[in-house]
């Protein structure tokens, strides 16, 4: 169990806001921190990691207190056993892929773990390359397994996939899920991509102006308790076209366009560009605004 209570004054582009959060993470949970930029998502991750100090607060992981402003406890980042995956990878440019991974090992004798990890993300052939020879997706894979080799108590991912194109993003989402299912480390990831939230997380915290405005399972949050769909995707409305008495809604999901029908009542609420959830329940696809 991880307990996080923190307050901090933040200066953002929209002016000064007060970040105030209080939440718990159960073991083996995969939490998405979702919200507009400037809401304080990254700051929350950094406070858990020990890279930014809260003005006041309390952070406890299992039985260890990492931060307690009341008692003056503030464990340095090195002692927190976290893993942090940064948006821009942050691989060490002077080290090869393998050296980057070796650097993360707690115990140099564990070097056989590196081969396993490289195999898991299909990078064995590139292990002797420097990071500047790798593509964005490959770099982020190395960053992911480097973080894991540190054997963290909590896995923090700061928009890990935002600089990748969609195809790679989908692929790496699968890999993050596979890693999560294999290691079952409590994980928090920051994203502003709803499809990522639906695909990856089992809990979502929605952050606005430094406050958690909603929390729960993604389906609950977005009012989809009725859904038990076999598939669901988030996309944008490209076109709303009236054909006789039904609307044909063209939705862009990734690179693909899908046409879904909607009644006039439903379609009246929607505009081109709206973000929608397309899901199939039994046989008929349904579509709703999120």
């Amino acid at each position, binding site marked *: 169990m991880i307990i996080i209570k923190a307050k901090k004054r933040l200066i953002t582009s929209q002016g000064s806001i007060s970040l105030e959060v209080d939440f718990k993470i159960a073991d083996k949970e995969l939490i998405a921190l979702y919200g507009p930029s400037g809401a304080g998502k990254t700051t929350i991750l950094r406070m858990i990691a020990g*890279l930014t100090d809260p003005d006041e607060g309390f952070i406890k992981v299992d039985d260890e207190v990492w931060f307690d402003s009341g008692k003056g406890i503030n464990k340095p980042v090195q*002692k927190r056993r976290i893993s942090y995956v940064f948006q821009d990878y942050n691989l060490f*440019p002077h080290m090869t892929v393998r050296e980057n991974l070796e*650097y993360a090992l707690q115990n140099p004798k564990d070097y056989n773990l590196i081969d396993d990890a490289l195999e898991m993300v299909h990078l064995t052939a590139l292990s002797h390359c420097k990071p500047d020879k790798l593509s964005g997706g490959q770099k982020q894979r190395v960053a992911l397994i480097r973080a894991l080799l540190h054997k963290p108590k909590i896995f923090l991912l700061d928009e890990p996939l935002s600089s990748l194109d969609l195809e790679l993003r989908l692929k790496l989402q699968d890999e993050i899920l596979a890693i999560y299912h294999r290691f079952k480390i409590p994980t928090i990831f920051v994203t502003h991509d709803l499809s990522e939230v639906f695909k990856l997380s089992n809990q979502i915290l929605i952050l606005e102006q430094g406050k958690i405005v909603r929390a729960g399972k993604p389906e609950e949050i977005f009012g989809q308790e009725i859904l038990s769909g076999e598939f669901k995707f988030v996309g944008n409305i490209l076109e709303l076209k009236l054909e006789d008495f039904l609307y044909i809604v063209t939705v862009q999901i990734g690179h693909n366009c899908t046409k879904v029908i909607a009644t006039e009542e439903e379609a009246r609420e929607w505009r081109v560009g709206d973000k929608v959830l397309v899901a199939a329940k039994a046989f008929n696809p349904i579509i709703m605004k999120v």
Partner: protein
Amino acid sequence: MNFDLSPLLLTFKLAATTTLILIIIGVPLAYWVVFTPRKLKYLVEPLISMPLVLPPTVLGFYILLFFSPQSWLGNFLETFFHIKIVFTFLGLVIGSVLFSLPFMVNPIKAGLQSFPQSLIEASYSLGKSKRETLFKVILPNIKPSLLTGIVMGFAHTVGEFGVVLMIGGSIPGVTRTASIAIFNDVEALNYANAHFYAGILFVTAFVILFTLNILNRKTVKII
């Protein structure tokens, strides 16, 4: 014609010793100035750069005052440790280290300042201490700055005159470096000797700076 090589050997011995000491104190000093949150750095930073603007004779004059056997410190060192600073090689080293300090510290400082904070945080997040991060992540990535510091520290010590003359006093074989030998030879109208030393210093300085430029051009900028 026989040339006395001792001023040249002395010059390079002094430059090598000074550079070695400068590396040892320059890296931690630059690191401290860049990363410390303490206000004291605003006092230390201009002190490091003082030799850039002060006449060398000022520095030489103060070192002479502080370490002369008549002074408290000079007397103390001589009585209890039998260490003489003034008119000795040790004195030259102390003067050169102080005088060349900005040439070593400033390039390293610039390298550290432009080094991405995020890579330092990545290293910390993997549980690495500040020292390990410095030696395994930061320093290997700012090699061009280190090299510039080392070469400039060395070259500047080779070219020193005022401080060395004030503290060393031009004792042949002990404190008479090449730059002072040139001055003496010109005064004595001994132009052949002066040409010999001057030519060697000129070529050496050029080769050092030329090599530095080539090396730093070859180093691929990775940051």
